[in-house]
């Protein structure tokens, strides 16, 4: 069972990562750099519990703020860029961040360590060991899964509310046409930066949760692959509504596990799935039209008025 | 030269054009006038093959082009200068013009035509190396017409050439059309600017909600009281 609890925690972490992409995706900005904020969150979160003796909740929050700060650092100058410029800027930032994390060394010596294990804290390429908060505080995998999914629930509800608010309509307008948005008096840059910072915050939280689940992190964990897969969660799940990232990340994390019986062929099958979804459901598995249809079907069955058309 | 019988164009369930028949004879300038959204552009898009024709029979010269793809229609000499110019902004003026001559392989003649177009539009010669994306609206329209001419069209379709231009430039565009007419070019002109269009054409068709509601000699239509009231904004 604890195997599935671990998978559940990992799924939750990936769902958060997907929402961090989705936050700026709503305004049409494609970031392949979320892994940088994820990594920053992981390092900050782990440092606080391991070296600073903080509790998990503050460490995770701090990881989130660190992620948001990093995203502001890259977002403010580059979000005024058009289209794919921004995407490439995020790639460059993520790779730069990986190099920095990879070379980072701080902390204190461990008096009783084995040969090769005499440092507490990140030790350059050797990595960051002994992130043992869960074991030290007797947090079981089941409890951790609950913690992760509580955070996921908060984020999902937040997106659910945002989706029905004016903010979402403004973001979608920016996605459709920036010029139009600007002409109706929307401070486009401010909205884009704010959305991106929210994404950075969620990625940071996700990273801190990841570090504590994995007990060990190193710069090489935060390669660009992870960002592209996070983007795939959103695109496969569907980027038009807030349900897409959720479904995308769950399927992406759980499906490979259930495909274990076919062993090494599961990656092929999985890649094939991406292509198939893109072929037959180009708007992702959950499209806006589908959510509308379901909404209509459900509400009309209950005899209520059909919902407003989604913005 | 162009003979259209009962043309219908549908977008999904919506019929944008219904049973339109029209003809253009060699050397004529024919204009389609009508309000915004009347279906004028849909008609010419169907003629040039950009949108499929739901039904009807379209002959261009001796060829049935009812179901020919757009690039093959162009090769027959039916050249469509689309609404909104549709130039390639990252290409220079000269490159855009050369694209017009894609279907031809007579190098010397192409060079001669290029020179001729640039003589017709001296502004283009001045800016032959400039990127099309950086030019003004009037210059772009000239470039678009020039690109159309580079194909040595037998029938030139001009879709809203005066759209979005300043009044002075609108006049210039109609001067160009008048010039082309004098040279004996066959032109199918789409215009919202009905009065100017009627003044520079031989015959006209009035289109309303996808149907031809009136047709005849342009000089007669200009004097039609109903038309004047409905389209020309004159009492």
């Amino acid at each position, binding site marked *: 069972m604890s195997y599935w609890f671990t998978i559940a925690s990992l799924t939750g972490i990936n769902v958060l990562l997907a929402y961090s992409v989705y936050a700026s995706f709503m305004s049409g900005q*494609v970031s392949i750099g979320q892994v940088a904020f994820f990594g920053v969150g992981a390092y900050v979160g782990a440092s606080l519990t391991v070296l600073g003796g903080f509790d998990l909740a503050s460490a995770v929050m701090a990881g989130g703020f660190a992620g948001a700060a990093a995203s502001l650092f*890259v977002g403010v*100058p*580059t979000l*005024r*860029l*058009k*289209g*794919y*410029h921004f995407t*490439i*800027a995020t*790639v*460059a*930032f993520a*790779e*730069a961040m990986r*190099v920095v994390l990879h*070379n980072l060394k701080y902390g204190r010596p461990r008096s009783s360590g084995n040969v090769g294990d005499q440092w507490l804290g990140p030790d350059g390429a050797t990595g960051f060991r002994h992130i043992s908060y869960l074991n030290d505080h007797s947090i079981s995998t089941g409890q951790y899964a609950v913690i992760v999914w509580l955070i996921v629930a908060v984020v999902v509800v937040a997106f659910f509310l945002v989706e029905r608010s004016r903010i979402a309509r403004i973001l979608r307008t920016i996605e459709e046409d920036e010029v139009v948005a600007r002409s109706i008096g929307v401070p486009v840059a401010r909205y884009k930066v704010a959305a991106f910072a929210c994404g950075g915050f969620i990625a940071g939280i996700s990273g801190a949760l990841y570090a504590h689940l994995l007990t060990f992190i190193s710069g090489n964990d935060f390669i660009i692959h992870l960002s592209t*897969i996070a*983007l*795939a969660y959103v*695109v496969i799940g569907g*980027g038009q509504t807030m349900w897409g990232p959720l479904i995308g990340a769950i399927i992406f994390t759980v499906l490979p596990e259930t495909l274990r019986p076919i062993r*090494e062929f599961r*990656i*092929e099958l*999985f*890649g*094939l799935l*991406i*292509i198939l979804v*893109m*072929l037959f459901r*180009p*708007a*992702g598995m959950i499209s806006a039209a589908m959510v509308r249809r379901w909404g209509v079907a459900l509400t009309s069955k209950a005899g209520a008025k059909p919902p407003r058309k989604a913005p | 030269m162009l003979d259209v019988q009962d043309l219908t164009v549908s977008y999904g369930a919506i019929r944008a054009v219904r049973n339109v028949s029209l003809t253009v004879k060699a050397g004529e300038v024919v204009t389609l006038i009508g309000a915004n959204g009347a279906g004028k552009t849909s008609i010419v898009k169907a003629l*040039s*093959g*950009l949108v499929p024709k739901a039904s009807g029979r379209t002959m261009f010269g001796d060829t049935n082009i009812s179901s020919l*793809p*757009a*690039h093959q229609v*162009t090769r027959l000499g039916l*050249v469509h*200068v*689309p609404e909104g110019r*549709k130039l*390639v*902004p*990252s*290409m220079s003026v000269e*490159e855009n013009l*050369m*694209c*017009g001559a*894609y*279907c031809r392989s007579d190098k010397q003649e192409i060079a001669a035509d290029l020179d001729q177009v640039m003589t017709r539009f001296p502004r283009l010669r001045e800016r032959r190396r400039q990127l099309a*994306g950086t030019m003004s609206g009037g210059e772009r329209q000239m470039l678009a017409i020039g690109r159309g001419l580079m*194909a040595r069209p037998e029938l030139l379709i001009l879709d809203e050439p005066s759209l979005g231009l300043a009044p002075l430039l609108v006049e210039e565009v109609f001067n160009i059309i008048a010039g082309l007419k004098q040279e004996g070019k066959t032109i199918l002109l789409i215009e919202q600017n009905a009065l100017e269009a009627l003044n520079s054409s031989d015959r006209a068709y009035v289109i309303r909600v996808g149907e031809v509601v009136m047709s005849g000699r342009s000089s007669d239509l200009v004097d039609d009281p109903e038309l004047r009231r409905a389209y020309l904004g004159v009492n």
Partner: protein
Amino acid sequence: MLLTAVEGLAYGGLYALLGLGFFLTYGVLRRIDLAYGTVVMTSVYLGAMMVGGLGLPWVGVLALTLVVGIPLSLLVAYLAFVLVRQDARFSMAATLGIWMVLEELMLQSPGRGRGQAIVNPLQDLSWWPWGLQIRIDHMVILGLALAVAGLLTRFLTRSRTGLAIRVSAYDASVAALLGISHARMMVLATVIASAVGCVAGWSFAMAQSGIDLHFGMWATVKGLVILVLGGTQSIALIVTAAIGLGVAERVGSELIGSGYRDLVGYGLILALLAVEPFLRPGETRFGDSR
């Protein structure tokens, strides 16, 4: 130091070839193809594997690479950019899937994902003017890159077909109105881009006497770097950027070591992107924004 820079110049030729393939895909065809490097890697890998198996001479690798690479690129283009056409972001996701599938297939090929040797006939030949060491194979590749760059420039700006490809990439309906068959032009452009990519991949593999699976992702990242530095407007800029990158990387390694070397490159991209809107307002590095 100077020595390093001069050698970097020769090495830049390798990057230039790679950059040209990317230029065609991203700049001319305007496809965000994350699988580009992987497709090239797969082609060279299979080429090398088959040559090893069939006992052909070294030139066979190039031939087989092209035989594998061109149909493969067409397949990728068809799947990701013809069938999936609604949104560039979705096409990009589809190429990600292709990337995963190809890499895994190589792991399960008879080569089992292990490095494949490629014979480099110029392996040990170097030219030593004034204490410099210039590899003959690098010079050959630099020459090849410049030749390809020249030919491509001529092709894209002068030839009828080249212009038609550019129109077609910009807008299918405009192309059709000019009498250009969009489908045929896209196939042709994909074939050219893929051929350039295959030649680049093969040259690279030959210069290092073998190919391994890391090459795919590496090539994609390097290609993107070159593209950002050089933009997608002109081939000359791409070649300059590629050679510049070759020099900068070597000088960087010499001065600051490998650890932080990449940081300089990425930092440069960020700085360039952040400053650019102020330097050239209204212009875009990535072709025509529609």
